Structures are given as structure tokens and as C-alpha cells.
């Protein structure tokens, strides 16, 4: 990375020179012009920034700089503008142009600022800077960086995590050292890390290496790396499979009630999921406009809202249409197909045909990195946990509560249940609303990973039915097995056959499997079956 070389110059100056005040010409050099010149200006100015320079550099990175004539402006969050050089407020004219920052400039800015962070006192910034350095050492090791690393390591106040990163960076940089002992030590150190980014580095070294001992060490390091890569790729495959399975499960759980237990071939199930997703979106919009400070927690509020919204729609469906159709499952197919058309078009009329944007709260963004190469996105992890929680809730509700008992009883024999004193109409409505509400919860979760649009439900309906049926109609446990099984199978196959063939293979698997078990995984075993 070219910018690092210039950083060395910068490094020597740190602490030595006194800050020099930002001039209008400097500001302009940063904000406009050819990328190469601007990078040069960044590196020149970042070496000894005064407060205003720093503010300008940071604003540049955030895309909050405009140029109005010859004047460089900083734009605050509220849209107000100040002169970058004087700090005086300025009225923003229409023709003010954004100062263009592309990826390359952004990288240069970040690096320039990060070296300061390395010696600063802000711990997270320090860690990030060290990581950046480590990354560049892995990708493009340049022995010229060593003094910088050493100098940083000499800092006794260095954060422990940042220190590890820097030590690794040093190892990478020393891999091509002239000193055989150093090379050996570096090779051994790197072997234990399991970072895939090291692979080209080690491979290149292995090719060039003369010393036999170092060669062995490198070979060991390579195979250690391969092992850990194999493990982490296996684990990541399993994780993606479970994650897909959890999504299938969420999508199917509601259907396991409305269809599995109640026998309603609910083609509008997908639309109930969609309603949950739109409810989430509305809650998000509400938080954005009224409670921006609590925006991160909108999802907690969205869950009950999504549940209730879909449950209410479901209850309305049940009261107005479905209740006339019990015992005629194929008719429910037709009617709910109609309902699904109406719901979809309704959403189109209300919110438009285009997708709406649902943002992840910050605690659902990003990922945790395990084992070097195994990155698990937070939203996936949380959705798996959420699916498990919903599953447990539903299972307890259905098998352990009176409501659950009534639901099962009523769905099996409606007239006799009513002769036992059960208000069957009410139970039916509750049960259908419950299944619909769970679909709403699924929608809430799905809004975090996919798109939210009027067609959202269509992409889940077929899969949901496959899962419920494969599991065995009316068998909650079967639904779980089917969802996880299909998720894992799909992801496993996708690994070596590609997305399309994997999906085809999964469908063929379903067809063949049903031949073996014509009533699904968990066939209802009994004489009435």
C-alpha cells in the first residue's frame, strides 16, 4: 500500500513538529482536484494537523464537505455549514458541490488518521489502527513499516489487543527478513494464527525460502493454516445451514399451526409474514421520527407490533372467511389464494410497489469473528436464537396449556369439542390469530436479512409448505427437523454444486424422501392415520 510509505515520513514528524494552521489553499487542495494530489495533501497535512485540519479531514471521510466557489465548507449533521478554515457559519448556496471522495481517498484518509490513533489514548481507535496495520502487513508486507511497528510497540501504554495485532504485523513483516532466526520465529508465530489472509504471504515465502529449517517451519505453518481453514469452512457451512434452517423454521412455524393443526391450506401465509415485516418497518419509521435516541431498540417494540398486526389480520381473515370453510381444506386454498392477492395489492396501494428499507439496529449489524476465518453475522446469530425462542414458546403453548389443548381438540373434532363446552369459534379465531401472529414475528425477523416489499411473502410460501409437509402435517417436532435438515442440506450442496443445482437437488430430495415416508418425517403413527 502506497500510502504507508508516505506515512513513514509522517511518523518521523509525530510529536516533533508543531501544528501548522489550515490555510484556504490547503483546504482547497484537500477538497478538490486530482486524487493523487489530494492524497499528497492529506498526507502532508495529517502529519501535523491543528484542530481545524483534523476536523476537515474527518468531515471529508464522512462525506460532509462541500465546496462553494473557492470556499470549503463543513456540513454539520443538521445541515448547517461552516467555513472549514475560519469556522464561521456560512449560508449554503444551491450550487455548492459535494467534495467527491472515492474509495481510494477514503482509504488514504483513514490510514492517515489511524497512525495518529495508534499513538493516541483512545483505546478502540488504537485497536482499529493496529488492526489496519496488521492487515496491510499481511496483504502487502513492506519491511519499511517495521520501524513504525516497533515504535508503536515500544509504547508501554499500548492496549493489549492492539499489541497483539502489532506483534502479528511485525511477524509478517519479518518473514522476509535477512536474519534466518527472525524468519523462523516469524514463520512459527504466523503458523498459529489461522488467518487466511496469510496464505499468499506464506506461499510466496515458501517458494523463495532457501533455509531448510525455515522451510519446514513454513510448511508446518501452511498446513496448520489449511487445517484451521478447513475447520472454519466446515463450521461456517454448518452455521449457514443452521441459519437458513432457522429462517425456514420461522417462516413455517405459523403455518404449522394454521395448516398443520387447523387444516387451513393458507396460501396467504406469506402475506401474513409480509405484514409483520411492514409493521416492523412502520415501527422503525415511528422511532426514526419520534424517538431517534432509542432507535436501536425499535426492534424490541416491533416484535409485539408485528405479532399483533399479523394476528389481527389473521383474526379478521378467520372471522370473515375461513370459519365457513372448516373441513373443506381445498376450498381454503382457493379463498386464501384470493385473500393473498388482495393483501398484496393492498400493500402495494398503501405503501407502493417498491421495497421499503428496514435497517438493522446497531446491535444486529456487523459480525463476530471466530477462528480467524469464521465470521458470524450478528443478525444471523440473533435470528437463530429468536427462532429457537419462538419455537420453545409455541411448543409450550400448544402442548402444555389449556388453550393449546383446546386448539388441538377443536381442530380435530369441532362439533364434539363444542359439545364439551368449548367455545369453538373463539378457539378457532385464537388459534388462527396465533399462527398468523407467529408469521408476523417471522416477518419481523426476515426484515432484518431480506427485502421488505409486497412480494416478500411469495418467496417463502412454497418453502414453508415444503417444510411443514416434509416434517409431517400436525407434527411440530417434524417441522423443526425438516427446517434444519433442509437448511443444512441446501447449504451443504450449495458448497459444491452452486445455488441453483443445490435448490433443485433439495426439491428432488423432498420428492424422494416422501416416497420413503409418505406422511413426512414424523408420520402420525396410529390406526386412524
Amino acid at each position: 500500500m502506497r500510502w504507508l510509505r508516505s506515512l513513514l515520513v509522517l511518523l518521523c514528524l509525530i510529536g516533533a513538529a508543531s501544528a501548522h494552521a489550515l490555510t484556504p489553499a490547503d483546504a482547497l487542495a484537500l477538497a478538490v482536484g486530482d486524487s493523487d494530489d489530494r492524497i499528497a495533501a492529506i498526507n502532508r497535512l495529517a502529519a501535523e494537523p491543528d484542530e481545524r485540519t483534523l476536523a476537515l479531514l474527518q468531515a471529508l471521510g464522512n462525506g460532509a464537505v462541500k465546496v462553494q466557489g473557492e470556499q470549503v465548507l463543513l456540513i454539520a449533521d443538521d445541515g448547517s455549514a461552516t467555513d472549514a478554515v475560519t469556522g464561521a457559519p456560512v449560508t449554503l448556496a444551491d450550487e455548492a458541490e459535494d467534495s467527491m471522495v472515492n474509495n481510494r481517498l477514503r482509504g488514504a484518509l483513514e490510514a492517515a488518521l489511524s497512525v495518529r490513533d495508534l499513538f493516541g489514548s483512545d483505546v478502540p481507535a488504537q485497536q482499529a489502527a493496529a488492526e489496519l496495520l496488521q492487515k496491510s502487513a499481511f496483504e502487502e508486507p513492506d519491511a519499511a513499516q517495521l520501524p513504525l511497528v516497533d515504535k508503536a510497540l515500544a509504547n508501554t501504554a499500548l492496549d493489549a489487543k492492539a499489541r497483539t495485532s502489532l506483534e502479528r504485523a511485525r511477524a509478517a513483516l519479518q518473514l522476509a527478513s535477512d536474519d534466518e532466526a527472525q524468519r523462523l520465529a516469524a514463520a512459527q508465530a504466523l503458523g498459529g494464527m489461522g488467518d487466511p489472509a496469510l496464505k499468499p504471504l506464506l506461499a510466496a515465502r515458501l517458494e523463495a525460502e532457501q533455509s531448510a529449517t525455515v522451510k519446514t517451519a513454513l510448511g508446518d505453518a501452511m498446513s496448520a493454516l489449511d487445517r484451521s481453514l478447513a475447520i472454519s469452512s466446515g463450521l461456517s457451512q454448518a452455521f449457514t445451514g443452521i441459519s437458513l434452517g432457522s429462517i425456514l423454521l420461522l417462516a413455517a412455524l405459523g403455518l404449522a399451526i394454521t395448516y398443520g393443526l387447523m387444516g387451513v391450506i393458507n396460501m396467504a401465509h406469506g402475506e401474513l409474514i409480509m405484514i409483520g415485516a411492514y409493521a416492523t418497518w412502520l415501527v422503525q419509521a415511528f422511532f426514526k421520527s419520534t424517538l431517534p435516541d432509542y432507535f436501536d431498540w425499535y426492534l424490541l417494540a416491533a416484535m409485539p407490533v408485528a405479532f399483533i398486526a399479523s394476528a389481527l389480520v389473521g383474526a379478521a381473515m378467520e372471522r370473515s372467511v375461513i370459519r365457513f370453510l372448516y373441513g373443506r381444506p381445498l376450498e381454503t386454498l382457493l379463498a386464501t389464494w384470493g385473500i393473498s392477492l388482495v393483501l398484496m395489492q393492498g400493500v402495494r396501494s398503501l405503501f407502493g410497489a417498491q421495497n421499503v428499507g428496514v435497517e438493522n439496529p446497531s446491535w444486529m449489524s456487523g459480525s463476530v469473528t471466530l477462528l480467524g476465518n469464521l465470521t458470524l453475522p450478528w443478525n444471523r446469530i440473533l435470528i437463530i436464537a429468536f427462532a429457537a425462542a419462538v419455537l420453545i414458546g409455541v411448543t409450550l403453548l400448544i402442548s402444555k396449556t389449556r388453550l393449546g389443548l383446546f386448539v388441538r381438540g377443536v381442530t380435530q373434532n369441532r362439533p364434539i369439542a363444542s359439545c364439551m363446552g368449548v367455545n369453538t369459534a373463539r378457539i378457532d379465531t385464537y388459534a388462527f390469530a396465533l399462527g398468523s401472529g407467529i408469521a408476523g414475528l417471522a416477518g419481523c425477523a426476515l426484515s432484518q436479512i431480506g427485502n421488505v416489499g409486497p412480494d416478500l411473502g411469495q418467496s417463502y410460501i412454497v418453502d414453508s409448505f415444503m417444510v411443514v409437509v416434509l416434517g409431517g402435517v400436525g407434527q411440530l417436532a417434524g417441522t423443526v427437523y425438516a427446517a434444519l435438515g433442509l437448511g443444512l442440506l441446501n447449504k451443504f450442496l450449495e458448497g459444491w454444486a452452486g445455488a441453483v443445482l443445490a435448490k433443485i437437488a433439495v426439491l428432488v430430495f423432498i420428492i424422494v424422501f416422501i416416497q420413503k415416508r409418505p406422511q413426512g418425517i414424523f408420520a402420525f403413527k396410529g390406526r386412524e392415520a
Partner: protein
Amino acid sequence: MSLLQVKDVNQYYGGSHILRNVNLSAELGKVTVVLGRNGVGKTTLLKSLMGLVPIKSGGITFDGKAIDKATPYERARAGIGFVPQGREIFARLTVQENLQMGLAYKPGGTPIPAELFELFPVLKQMLGRRGGDLSGGQQQQLAIARALAAGPKLLILDEPTEGIQPNIIKDIGKVIRMLADRGNMAIVLVEQYYDFAEELADQYVVMERGEVIASGPGSEMQAKNIRQLVAI
């Protein structure tokens, strides 16, 4: 006044007239037996009592209140227990859950009366088995137990001996007698098994083509040669 009073009930399936001006009453402590050949409308009558089929005209009063507009569950809550023809147990619920369904309108947590297991010991052994897996006769016992669970004021039984082994029929007979003799329950029994019916009857009603053609106190059944009436 009788606990249950059925007055001039008429009922149709589509175009065909199934019940014609049927009158019937049941009193606490008494067993009312309804007799009649296949297809004369006995089950239909009981279903009308439960509210499972609407009646076209006439009136049904129970415990002094008109119930002919009430839904089946309201009638159940008012204190009518029903043992349907063909058992109609919940095939996928366990025996225990079937019995809990019988307690549906009682507050949650009401225990299943232990008495039921004394009457039908086999149910105790099979508490965890799915109702649908029981044998025919076991299912019949379960159906009776389920109807008794909540302690109804009126018990309606539609051919409860069908498919039951002789010693249990005897037991059922005893149970019915005992329940009636306690004096706080009225029983309406539809039965084909004439001897069984005659033995239990405090009152009898004979139906033919949807009409009541004979009725009276049980003690007169032999004298009036009711057996012949049913056999014709």
C-alpha cells in the same frame, strides 16, 4: 317440572322431514329411553338437543330456560353432557387430554374425577395413549367418561353399548342406574339393545319415521309389548 322439555320439534335435512312434532321430557333421577329402528331419527333428535343441528320449529327448554337458540357449547355449559354415536373421541389427543376436554368449561386445573377411573379402570392404564389407538370398546368407555367428567345435570347417550363387551355393558348399566339414582342427573338414552334399555328405563319413547309413536313409564314396557313395536 321436568329438567328437559322438548315440545313439537321439527327438523329437516335438506328437503326431507326427519323429526315430526317430537315431544320428550327428562327428569332428574330418571332414565328416559328412546327406542326405534335404524334411521328413524334418534341421533338427529339428540343432535338437536345438543344444538348440533338447528331445529325448524318447536321448543326445547332446559332447567327452565329455552335453549333452542343456544350454541352447543352454551348447552354444554348449562349442564348437558353428550356421548355421541360412533364415540367421536379426539383421536390424536391422549386419553388424559380427552378427559380434560370434558372439563373444558370448568376452571383450569380442575382434576379429573377419580371416580371415573373406578368406573372404567382401563382408562387409567391407558392415560397416555392416543384416543384413536384405543379399541372400539375402549373408545366407547372413554366417550362416556368424558361426558361425565364435568358432572352434567343431563346426560345424553347415543347407543353407548355399541361395541362393548358384555361385562362392561353391565357395568355401564349399573353406572347409569347409579347416576340416576343419585337424583341429581337426568339421563336420555338412545338404545337398540332392547333388554338393556328395558332394564334401565324409567320412561320410554318409541320413534318411527321421525315421529313418537309410543311413550310411557318404563314399568309398562313389557305390558305394552314395546319389544314388538321396535321389531316390526
